[in-house]
């Protein structure tokens, strides 16, 4: 039993990391990863929603009638998304300004509804917690990595913090003569760099 809980957790971190392995949830992946800070912020917001909705859905899975389950899942998910939105406005307003419309869009993020429908509604609370946390953190590192690559190429440096707790500041790693490659932080650059990262991920076997 303990082994399977651990495997539910770790599968999201590598074997089924949503944007790279399942190629799911690409709207925020492409939209907010202009910097590492935004990517990680968005990833953590999604993780919170995913974790809470997974726990609640699995607790209520015997109460929710099958015919209206999607409506119930959406109510639960939307509630937690608004919680995140309000908390972010209260405590991390500048991050909220950067992420803007993408926070309410977590409601329609197919990963969140997908985990509720495919996993949490069929499994117990402990497993669902592990699953939500694993998938969420997998999503976070994927967004953080994509954001970091885009920020590095687009501006030549990395700078930011997570909710004022962890700070990082890497100035000009390419040297002073580096010309920022602005394409990387624009929307088309997101597609190109995501493609290259997918390619790199596929070179490494998922097992």
């Amino acid at each position: 039993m303990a082994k399977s809980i651990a495997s539910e957790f770790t599968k999201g971190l590598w074997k089924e990391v949503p944007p790279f392995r399942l190629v799911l949830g690409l709207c925020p992946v492409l939209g907010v990863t202009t910097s590492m800070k935004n990517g990680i912020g968005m990833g953590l917001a999604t993780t919170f929603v995913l974790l809470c909705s997974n726990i609640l859905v699995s607790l209520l899975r015997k109460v929710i009638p099958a015919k209206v389950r999607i409506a119930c899942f959406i109510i639960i998910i939307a509630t937690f998304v608004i919680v995140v939105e309000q908390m972010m406005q209260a405590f991390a307003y500048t991050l909220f300004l950067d992420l803007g419309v993408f926070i309410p869009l977590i409601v329609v993020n197919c990963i969140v509804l997908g985990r509720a429908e495919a996993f949490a509604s069929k499994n117990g609370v402990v497993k669902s917690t592990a699953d939500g946390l694993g998938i969420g953190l997998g999503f976070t590192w994927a967004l953080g990595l994509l954001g970091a690559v885009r920020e590095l190429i687009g501006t030549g440096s990395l700078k930011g913090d997570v909710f004022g707790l962890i700070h990082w500041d890497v100035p000009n790693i390419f040297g002073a003569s580096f010309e920022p490659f602005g394409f990387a932080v624009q929307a088309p650059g997101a597609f190109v760099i995501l493609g290259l990262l997918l390619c790199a991920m596929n070179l490494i076997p998922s097992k």
Partner: protein
Amino acid sequence: MGEMIKMVMVLTILSVISGGGLKGLEEWAKPKIENNVMNLVKGPAIRQILEAADNDPVEDRFKIKDGDQELNIFVGVFGGKADTVVVESSANGFADKVGMVVAINMTDDTLRGMAVTTHKETPGLGAMAKDDPNFSAQFAGKNITDSFGVTNDGGQISALSGATITSRAVCSGINQAVDTYNRLKPQLQEQIKGMGN
């Protein structure tokens, strides 16, 4: 029949708990959010419109009663004379309310400038109302006796391409701010008389 009742019950109970909880959260978060908006969005926007002012318009603000609601008024001092007031207003845009601040020169009743503060418009289209300085610059210096409108509707403001609804919202927000200003003008003059010396 029993299944039907159960479905309705579950959905109703979930919605009620969710709605009630969120209302409570909103009440709790509201003052914090307003504080953040003032410090990080409205403050910088107002300081930018009134860049040449001798005072800090955000420091020199007061509240005024308009009917049953309280409005924030920001005051700009130019050349030792408090002659500019900034009024807040909002209008329905494409996604949600578009909030803005409107600076009016009280000496000659012209717009000194305006800026969009809070909005949820589409990035790249409606959001340009805030991001494109050329759009908001159109309003500066205009006489407030004219009502504002986009050129499509026979007005004088060229709308943002692909964002006519947002542009209309900005115009109607400014018209509202001007209405508020005209309504409160005597009180405003009274309030700022002593300032700026």
